[in-house]
């Protein structure tokens, strides 16, 4: 669990989707979000859990935290 209580502006629920579904869903939502928006990506795909932060970094957004929720991960990202 996280020490921080995030209050995301957008929740992208990509649970049960495999690579690159979660990443593609996130990119779509990031593009349409306002600068500074907080997004939460929910994924059950371990590959995406590891790969999505690479995209966030390359695209210049900020990875706030990846939280293990037990049966899925929440990846919190702030749009630049």
């Amino acid at each position, binding site marked *: 669990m996280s020490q921080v209580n995030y209050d995301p502006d957008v929740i992208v629920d990509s649970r*049960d989707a495999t690579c690159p579904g979660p990443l*593609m869903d996130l990119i779509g939502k990031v593009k349409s979000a306002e600068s500074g928006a907080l997004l939460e990506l929910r994924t059950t795909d371990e590959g995406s859990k590891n790969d999505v932060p690479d995209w966030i970094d390359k695209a210049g957004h900020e990875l706030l935290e990846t939280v293990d929720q037990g049966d899925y991960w929440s990846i919190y990202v702030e749009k630049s």
Partner: protein
Amino acid sequence: MQGFAIVLASEELERVQAVSIISSVAAASEIPVEIFVTMNGFRPFEKEVVENMDFEGGRAAEAMMEAEEVDVPLFKEQLEQAKSLGPLSIHACEMTMDLMGKELDDFVDLFDGTLGVSGFISAAEDKQVVFV
């Protein structure tokens, strides 16, 4: 780097799927991608083949088709999504279509148009060419 020009000449689902994954993420990340479908690469795009999921392929393709617990997005949906998010164009090889007596209407609605070899070389001029 100015992006990728991918020549897709294989009908194997796992290869088409790999092209789709890499192209989709690249385009959605604003890296331009041109896909040139030629030779056997056309078969997976035929409407009947997609409707009946009648794809050719090896073990990875079988695993994708049989996956029940997870949702594996088919290349068609991935490419549609990617085209709405970034610079991705899909071209159909004119020569192969003539050879096989096909029209664009025979394929799922993903193609931007037909292209000859000169057109492809021109589109690929500033890009890294990948042959699949």
